[in-house]
């Protein structure tokens, strides 16, 4: 199989994630979209590493997964806190930083 197939899959997943981030209002959905984008880049890393014959990329992918887990943990914690304060996680409603 060619490398391009992997890159194509990654690109599709990344685009879905990016689209979701731009259109969704719920904080949780946005976080899930971020995960999609992260995993798209992970696929790229692993693919290049596998075809390039260099294991470094796979190690990076492992790191990136660990960091994604931590990021998700913090993100959900923030959302829970937000929900307690505002009663909503609709990010369009949370705009107190506006002018």
């Amino acid at each position, binding site marked *: 199989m060619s490398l391009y197939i992997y890159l194509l899959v990654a690109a599709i997943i990344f685009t879905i994630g*990016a689209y979701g*981030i*731009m*259109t*969704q*209002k719920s904080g949780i959905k*946005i976080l899930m979209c971020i995960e999609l984008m992260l995993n798209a880049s992970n696929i790229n890393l692993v693919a290049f590493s596998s075809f390039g014959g260099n294991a470094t990329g796979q190690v990076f992918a492992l790191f990136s997964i660990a960091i994604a887990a931590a990021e998700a943990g913090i993100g959900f914690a923030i959302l829970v806190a937000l929900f307690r304060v505002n009663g909503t996680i609709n*990010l*369009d409603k*949370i*705009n*107190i*930083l*506006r*002018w």
Partner: protein
Amino acid sequence: MFGDYAALIVLLPVIAFVLTLFFGNKLPSGGAHLPIAAIAGSFIISLGTFFEIYPNGSVQQSMQWFSTLNFGILIDPLAVVMLMMVSFVSLLIHIYAVGYMAHDPAKPRYFAETSLFTAAMLAVVLSDNILQFFMAWEIVGLCSYLLIGFWYHKPTAAAAAKKAFLVTRVGDVLFLAGIVLLYVNMTNVITNTGFSLEPGNFILQFKSMFAAIPYIAPTQLTIITLLFFGGAVGKSGQFPLHGWLPDAMEGPTTVSALIHAATMVTAGVYLVARTFPMFVEAPNALLVVAYIGGFTAIFAATMGLVMNDIKRVLAYSTVSQLGYMMLALGTAGMVLGAKAVGISMFHLLSHAFFKALLFLCAGSVIHAVGTNDLREMGGLFGKMKITATTMFIAALALAGFGIPGLHIGTAGFFSKDAIIEGAYEYGYVTGDMIPYVFSILAALLTSIYIFRLWFMAFSGKPRQDRHAHESPPVMTVPLMILAVFALFFGFSQTGFYGYLETNFVLMGVEIGVHEGEAFHPSALILWLPIIVGVLGLVISYLIYNRRIVDMSRIVTRRNPLYQLLLNRYYEPGLSSYVIGEKLTHGTAAMTGEFVDRRIIDGFVIDTVISRTLLSLGDVLKKIQTGVVRNYISVMLLGVGLLIILLRIGGT
């Protein structure tokens, strides 16, 4: 073997500092035993090192810090005698403090800070380069601030701590400027002349500095040494930066003892002694040292005469005695060369013993009667025999009692008379007798004020009914040990001078010892110091014990001289009101008013510039929608644009 572990001399008290600070409140007597054990360890290593390197060895360890700077240890004769003195006196003061501070709730903080104080002073002593010396010197300053303000809930103590920190900081800035100037000169010398560092030597090491002396221009050398001396003036409380030392009495008495005997004020004298080869090549700087020292000796002694606070008297005494040490370096340095370091350091050591003793005795008295005021004491001899006796020994040592012909006397007799003789010899050679006159008059005043203190505290009838009692053994035993040293330390004089004379030779610096013609002062010169000493004792006895003169009629608010002395020549007011409030604060306020209000506000408030910027801001802030999705979209758009641009640029 001991020399290899020289770093532990500093590290042990540092470890004790950390442990006591964090775990002291869980240990018996506030964790006092940790610093005591650590400093005892430092003392043992110092002692062992001394026996290893005696009579003409040294310990030198050095490692690169960065670039051309290093960390290192240099233990030569000069350093090792200081190390032994500092660790020993500090050890005794720490033991004493177990009793003195027994009722204080903040013991862990006290013992942690004194431990760090001792460590910093030991680090000053065994530095092998001037930069490390300066860093340790600054830690000493910090610890003095913390300890003088130990009872920080007292406003006077907090103010005194601040004053000590700020006044010594004036000196520190001069010292740092001296180091920078020295560094510039050293690099110039290396690039422009034939001088080069020996392999393994670093640029600010003392031995490199001394080796470069012949290549540095004399005027530069004079400026550098004067700046160094400025640092010493601040740290050692010399005129005109002496004001902080008497105020520093606001701390616990044991802290005063540490500052005055072992760990702080001697650092200034040690700095001049340490860089003495540079001073010798800059005679003008040496002259300044001599005159400042001589003037301080007599100036401080006059104020010691009238103080009513027992610790203040001792504080002025310290300032005066430090003046003697500077005087010795200056005058004897010009006529006797390297021997001046021996003379000065000998007085430093013997002073450390008897001044620590005086302070600890004063602490014992204060502990017993609960006041610092001499006028409320009196008649304590019967109740506090050990304290009274040891304090009398210390007073004898301070006044320099002894018999010149027979070489019998207290420690102060040997050390102070050598300084006065050195000053006389300087006068004899150069015809400039002023330093000698200063020193002999100061000796008379010294004797008067110290016996005044003793008679007022211990003789006569109690002026107030206080239930005085002798202090516990943990306090009196250090007193007795120090008293032994105050009495008998002087007999090591000849050996001490001989040992220290080799000091700079070890570093490859030859300072000529100018002993051309044998100098034999007349009998009067030999006897004069002891004559004025006895005279002082008699005067004090007659006035304060026999009361042949009614002092209450001389000491009145109407006597201008008494007013002048009691108000310490108006120095506190001068420095805090004139310099502090009027000059510094006034200048700052005026500058602030002018620059901020007129210039900056004038440009900004309600002008074209400000109005344009404000209206522009009103328009641009609409971009901040506060909707996260918008931000992300713009960001993705930006990243996409960037990638496209990179592709275009790449091909």
